[in-house]
């Protein structure tokens, strides 16, 4: 791990060294990178807020406090509150099985867990329509029993779970792999039960990875559009999540309102990035402390 001091040092004297570029090359490269990032990240980011506030704060506030907007927020929150804990429990269970035991087909299992990443969101929505929709496998049964999955909240939740399925497991597996089994074995020799071991030894050790996974899951769950769009049916005030509400407003040429709601989602994304950066910083900070040995 490099120390910041060393990096600063390298930065200052870099041009004198054989392993760096002359200043004009450096600044050209930095310039190109800045233009690229500005074009694709900064300008779109700024545009959201500019468009949202184009007609003033009054319109902005009205757009985000309107009844349909509020119910969309509520549904987005529900979808996230259900899918995050479920995928969290799954992630811990999968990481435990995969990293602490040897069994055949392990790498195949890891690939299967990754599958939802490879599936287009639209298809993620489609599969649930195929199963629970009117013409689906359980379609008739659901109608007979007066349950609605597709074009209703359960479908939105299912699609969200599918889309965010791998995040926590993906974060935990490499972490727990790297940490090995010794601490768990030590806990076992000292008499800890399985749950106590999990709670007092394993989970605290992967704390930051776990939080990181939850942050990513939550961001994706709240922002998912394609999959949810297929299963929701776009019923205003009933099955609209925030991203769907943005789409409806936009398609009605109500741009200011669409961007107002979009700005909330953008703030959520920015908060996510801040949390993510903080967690990364904490994790590497903890790791740095662990590498530093104090010899007395």
């Amino acid at each position, binding site marked *: 791990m490099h120390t910041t001091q060393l990096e600063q040092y390298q930065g200052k004297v870099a041009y004198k060294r054989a392993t760096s570029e002359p200043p004009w090359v450096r600044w050209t490269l930095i310039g190109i990178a800045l233009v690229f990032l500005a074009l694709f990240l900064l300008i779109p980011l700024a545009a959201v807020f500019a468009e949202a506030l184009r007609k003033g704060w009054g319109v902005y506030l009205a757009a985000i406090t309107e009844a349909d907007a509020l119910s969309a927020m509520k549904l987005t929150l529900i979808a996230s509150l259900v899918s995050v804990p479920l995928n969290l429990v799954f992630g811990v269970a999968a990481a435990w099985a995969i990293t602490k035991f040897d069994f055949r087909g392990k790498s195949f299992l890891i690939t299967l867990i990754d599958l939802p990443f490879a599936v287009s969101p639209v298809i993620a929505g489609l599969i649930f329509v195929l199963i629970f929709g009117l013409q689906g496998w359980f379609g008739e049964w659901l109608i007979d029993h007066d349950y609605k999955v597709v074009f209703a909240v359960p479908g939105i939740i299912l699609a969200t779970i599918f889309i965010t399925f791998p995040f926590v497991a993906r974060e935990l597996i490499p972490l727990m792999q790297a940490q090995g089994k*010794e*601490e768990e*074995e*030590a*806990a*076992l*020799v*000292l*008499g*800890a*039960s399985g749950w*106590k071991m999990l709670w*007092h*030894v394993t989970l*605290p*050790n992967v*704390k930051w990875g776990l939080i990181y996974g939850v942050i990513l899951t939550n961001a994706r769950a709240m922002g998912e559009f394609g999959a949810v769009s297929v299963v929701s049916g776009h019923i205003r005030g009933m099955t609209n999540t925030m991203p769907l509400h943005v789409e409806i407003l936009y398609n009605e040429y109500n741009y200011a309102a669409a961007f107002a709601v979009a700005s909330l989602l953008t703030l959520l994304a920015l908060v996510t990035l801040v949390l993510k950066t903080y967690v990364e910083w904490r994790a590497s900070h903890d790791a740095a*402390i*662990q*590498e*530093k*040995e*104090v*010899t*007395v």
Partner: protein
Amino acid sequence: MGITIQQISKGFGQFSALRDIDLEVPSGELVALLGPSGCGKTTLLRIIAGLESPDKGQVLFDGVDTTHADVRERQVGFVFQHYALFRHMTVFENVAFGLRVRPKETRPSNAEIKKRVHDLLKLVQLDWLADRYPPQLSGGQRQRIALARALAVEPKVLLLDEPFGALDAKVRKDLRRWLRRLHDELHVTSVFVTHDQEEALEVADTIVVMNHGQIEQVGSPQAVYDDPATPFVYEFLGNVNAFETPQGKGFVRPYEIAVSREPALNTIAGALTYVHSVGSLVRLEIKRTDNEQYVDVELGRDVFNQLNFKQGETVYIKPTQLRVF
């Protein structure tokens, strides 16, 4: 508590790690499992602990079959090679862990835990580190904390996997002496694994020399060093010269060779190629004239000074003791 190992075998896939091991560890002894890496010593230790289950055979604690007992019921203390300290807990919490995870009925009160942990930290002379985290400790300190943690549950058997393996030479020496003293004080049956013969010779009451999943010899440090049972033990413990004799391969320690300028009955001629003279012993490197093989010889400084050999001169050597297998 005494440990009895009966007919233990263990394989990993095609690889057979242990084959029909029989071993008796008397109560209160400090035993070293010594051997090169891959000889099965760590596997045997883990089987005693219950961290690994044998393919066949039994482990008896004081005559009671514990082969299939859960690790948690065995009351063993295990010190891991890399200590396996819980890095997110303070030193105090690490040592207290084994007490805190007990079921409510048998768990000591907080005050008792506190006293027990501090007593143990005093025992390992690290009371002042109670609030530190493992990453902030030196290797030697971590080692001692790992030991205190293992002792906190009042184990009937203490098992240590390469306890000094990850430490530098100086700390290693200190800790060796310290572990010896600690064992004399506590008298808990202890087994440790090492690949370092010097370590085993210095610390253990009994040494178990292992190779290729089998026990080569069991005995006191003096017995295994002076009276090796097999060529392997001879070569593994200390420097040794091998001589071809009509009866088979003969082994001689470097200090069991007489050197003179005059040929005599059964002496072997050789050229003195190198003299290494630092410390109380002088090491000579002699190249045999007949088969060009090198022989290491150790002489006391006074003997060497008397004879005053020069590099390059021809000398005649004769083993004073030769063990043939």
